[in-house]
C-alpha cells in the first residue's frame, strides 16, 4: 500500500494477500471468514423496531446491534479540569442511559411529575414514544488523555491506549476542525429520530458546565446492515451498501476484527470508533452514466451483485472477466475496499445525511461513516490508505474526522461508563 503504486497491479494484490503479509486475511479465507451473510433471508431486522435493546452487556450496545434507522452522533469537549466532575457526569449519563434505552424518562422524576416551579428533569419530547431500539454508545477521544498541547488534564495520560491516536492525513481530506475530533462522543441510534435526538439532548443537559457539545451530526438512514437478518440498505449514491459488512452472526470474526481483547487494559471488550463525514458530490454523480456509476462502485446498481456476478451475496470474484476486461475494475470502490485487497475488515455502521443545501443550490449530503475495529491502524486507516486511487474519490470529500475508544459494556447495577478507565 505504498505510495509508489502508480498502477495498482491486480496480480500484486493477489500475491500480497495470498502470502498473508498484507494483514490479517488470507485471500482464500476472506470469503469464508468475513463471511457473506447468508443470502436470501433479509427478513425483519431482528428485534421489533419499537422494542428496547438491552443496555448492559460485555460489549456496549450500538456496535453489533442490528443497525437502527436513525442516528444522532455528538462529540463533546470537556470544559473543566475537575476529574471528579467528569466522573459525576459519566455516572449521571449512565443512569440516564439505562432509563432512556428502556423507554423511560431521562431523570427519576420525569417530564411532567415534578414541581411546577422546577425545570423538568426530562425534556418530554419522547413521552408516549416506544424505546425504538435506542442504543447509546460512549467513546473517549485522544484529547481526553492528552490535549493537543500535551496537557494531561485528568491524570489519564498513562492510560491512553497506543491504538488511540489521531488519524493520519489522507489525500483529498478537506477536514473542518470545528466538526472533527472531540474528547468524548455519544452515538445514539434508534428507529425513531425523535428518540435519538431526545437522548442526546438530555445527556447534553446533564453535562452542562462539564462537557460542551463540540459538534453533532444527524443521520437519517442506515447505510450498512450489521446483521444477516437485515436487508441491505442503499446509500445516497443509490447503491446497496454494506453487503459484505461484518455481521453480528459472526462472533469469531467480530472477536478478531472488532473487539479489543487480551490487552489486560480497560479497553478489553471495547472497540475503536472512527467517524468520517463524507460529503457526496451529488449533482455530478447524478449526471454520470449508469455504467460509470457501476464501474465506480464495482457492483450492479439494481441487484447489488458484484460486477460479473448475479446475486447480491455472490462472492466478489476479482478474476472474472467480461469482454477481456476484469469485471470489477481495479479502481472500483469494492475492489479496493474489499477485505481481500485491503487485507483487513471493519464493522461499518454509517448513516446517510442531508444537512440542507450549501448555498450554491447543491445538496449538502453524503454519508456519515462510522466504523468499529479492534485497532484503527489495522482497520480504517489500512482500508482508507488503500482507497487512494478509488474512482469514487471524484465524487466524495471527507469533511470531518474523529476517533474514539469505546470502553466495554456496563455490567451490573453499580457499573458506569468509563469505570474501568477512571476507577
Amino acid at each position, binding site marked *: 500500500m505504498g505510495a509508489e503504486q502508480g498502477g495498482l497491479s491486480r496480480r500484486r494484490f493477489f500475491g500480497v494477500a495470498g502470502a498473508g503479509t498484507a494483514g490479517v486475511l488470507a485471500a482464500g479465507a476472506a470469503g469464508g471468514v468475513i463471511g457473506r451473510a447468508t443470502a436470501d433471508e433479509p427478513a425483519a431486522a431482528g428485534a421489533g423496531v419499537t422494542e428496547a435493546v438491552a443496555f448492559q452487556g460485555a460489549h456496549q450496545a450500538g456496535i453489533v446491534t442490528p443497525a437502527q434507522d436513525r442516528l444522532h452522533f455528538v462529540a463533546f469537549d470537556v*470544559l473543566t479540569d475537575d476529574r471528579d466532575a467528569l466522573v459525576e457526569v459519566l455516572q449521571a449519563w449512565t443512569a440516564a442511559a439505562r432509563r432512556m434505552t428502556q423507554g423511560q424518562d431521562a431523570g427519576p422524576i420525569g417530564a411532567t411529575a*415534578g*414541581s*411546577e*416551579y*422546577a*425545570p423538568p428533569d426530562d425534556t418530554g419530547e419522547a413521552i408516549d414514544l416506544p424505546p425504538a431500539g435506542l442504543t447509546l454508545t460512549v467513546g473517549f477521544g485522544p484529547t481526553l488523555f492528552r490535549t493537543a498541547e500535551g496537557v494531561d488534564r485528568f491524570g489519564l495520560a498513562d492510560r491512553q491506549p497506543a491504538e488511540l491516536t489521531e488519524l493520519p492525513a489522507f489525500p483529498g481530506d478537506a477536514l473542518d476542525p*470545528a466538526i472533527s475530533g472531540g474528547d468524548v462522543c455519544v452515538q445514539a441510534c434508534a428507529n425513531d429520530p425523535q428518540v435519538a435526538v431526545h437522548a442526546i439532548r438530555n445527556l447534553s*443537559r446533564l453535562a*452542562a*458546565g*462539564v462537557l*460542551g457539545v463540540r459538534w453533532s451530526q444527524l443521520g437519517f438512514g442506515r447505510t450498512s446492515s450489521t446483521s444477516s437478518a437485515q436487508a441491505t440498505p442503499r446509500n445516497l449514491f443509490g447503491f446497496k451498501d454494506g453487503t459484505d459488512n461484518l455481521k453480528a452472526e459472526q462472533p469469531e470474526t467480530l472477536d478478531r476484527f472488532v473487539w479489543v481483547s487480551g490487552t489486560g487494559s480497560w479497553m478489553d471488550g471495547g472497540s475503536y470508533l472512527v467517524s468520517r463525514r463524507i460529503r457526496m458530490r451529488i449533482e455530478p454523480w447524478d449526471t454520470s452514466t449508469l455504467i460509470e456509476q457501476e464501474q465506480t462502485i464495482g457492483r450492479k446498481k439494481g441487484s447489488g451483485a458484484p460486477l460479473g456476478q448475479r446475486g447480491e451475496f455472490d462472492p466478489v470474484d476479482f478474476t472474472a472477466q467480461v469482454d477481456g476486461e476484469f469485471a470489477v475494475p481495479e479502481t472500483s470502490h469494492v475492489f479496493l475496499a474489499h477485505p481481500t485487497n485491503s487485507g483487513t475488515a471493519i464493522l461499518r455502521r454509517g448513516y446517510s445525511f442531508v444537512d440542507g443545501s450549501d448555498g450554491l443550490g447543491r445538496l449538502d449530503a453524503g454519508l456519515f461513516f462510522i466504523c468499529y475495529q479492534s485497532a484503527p491502524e489495522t482497520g480504517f486507516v489500512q482500508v482508507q490508505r488503500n482507497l487512494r486511487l478509488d474512482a469514487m474519490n471524484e465524487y466524495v470529500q471527507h469533511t470531518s474526522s474523529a476517533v474514539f475508544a469505546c470502553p466495554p459494556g456496563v455490567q451490573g447495577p453499580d457499573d458506569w461508563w468509563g469505570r474501568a478507565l477512571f476507577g
Partner: protein
Amino acid sequence: MSTPLRNALAATSLATLTLLAACGGGSTDSGSTAGEASDDIAVAASDDTCDVATSELEAGTHQFTVTNSGSKVTEFYVYAEGDRVMAEVENIAPGVARELLVELPAGDYETVCKPGMVGDGIRNALVVSGEAAQLSEDENLQQAGEDYQRYVQSQTGALLEQTTAFVEAVKAGDVPAAQALFPVARTYWERIEPVAESFGDLDPLIDGREGDQAEGEDFTGFHRIEQALWETGDVSDMGPYADDLLANVQEIVARANEVTLDPLQLANGAKALLDEIATGKITGEEDRYSHTDLWDFAANLEGSEAAVQALRPFLEEADPELVGEIDERFAATEAELEQYRQGDGWALHDTLTEDQLRGLSDSITALSESVSQVAAVVADQ
C-alpha cells in the same frame, strides 16, 4: 425583550409570594430613610484607593459619606457575603461627595469602591457586631424583595442620569460622545431588565429592535438611535426619538422604584437575564449596529447575580449545595467574560472568534442550569 415577569406568577397562591409593600431601603438615591444614623463614616475614594474610616461597627443604621478625589467616576457598595448589595451609590463624579444611609445587622461585610465603575473594585472588610438577627426562612424571603428593590433603586438613578447624558449628546449632534455613552446607559437598563420588562408597554418603546414593531408602529428607543449613530453617523433627525427615549425612561424609573418583586419573580428574573444573554448577546443580535453586546452581557450577568444574591440568605438555609454551585458558576462565567475586558469597557462582539463565543455560551448554559433550580427551592418554601 421576553415574556413579562408580571404574568409569570399570576396563578400562585402562596401567601409569601404576594407583592411586598414598597419599603424603605438604605440608599439616599431612593430618597427613603431607614432610621436615623448616629454617625457619619468618611470614605476617601480615588482611582486606586478606597479608605473607609472604620472597619468595625455596631449593628444599626449608619451613614457613609463618599468623597471621590480621583479622575474617574466611581461607585461605592456595601456587600454582604456573595456580593449581596446592602447599599450602594452609583455615579460619584470626580470631586463630588455623596451620602449613603444603610441599616446593617451584625455580620461580615465588605466596602467596595469601583473606580471607572468596572471590575471587582477595591475592597475592605467591615465587621458589624451586635446581636445577629435570626430570620426565619419566611422572613428571609420577605427580606429578599426589599434587598432587590434597594438594588433596583440604585440602578434606576444611574439609568436616568446616564440616559439624560446620552440624550443630550445625541441632541447636540455629538456622535463620539453619544457612542461612548450608549453602552454605559444601557448597562443600567440591562441590569434591571426583569423589572423594566414587567412594564410591557414601555419596554418595546425603549428597547425594541428593528423589525419587532407591529405594522404602522415606529421603530424607536435605544436601538433606533444606535442605528443612526453607527450606520450613518447622522443624528440630525434623532431629536424626537431622543426626547421620547428620555420620557419613557423617566416613566419606567418612576414605576420601577415602586415595585417590589416577590421571591419567585426574583428567581425567574435571574434566569430570564441569563436567557437574555444566551439569546441576544452571545449572538450579537442586541446591539447589531454598535456591537457593544458584551456591555449588555456583563450588565445582565450582574443583574442576575443581584437577584440571586437577594435570595441568598434564604437559599443558604434551604439549599446550601445549590448556592455553592451557583457561586462557582457565576465566578466561572465572570472569568470567561473578563478575558474580553478592554479598559473600562469590553471588546466588540464582532471581534470575538467562534471559539471565544462558544466559551461564553458554554459558561452561560451551565449557569442557567443551576439558576433554573432556584425557583423550585423558593416555591417549596
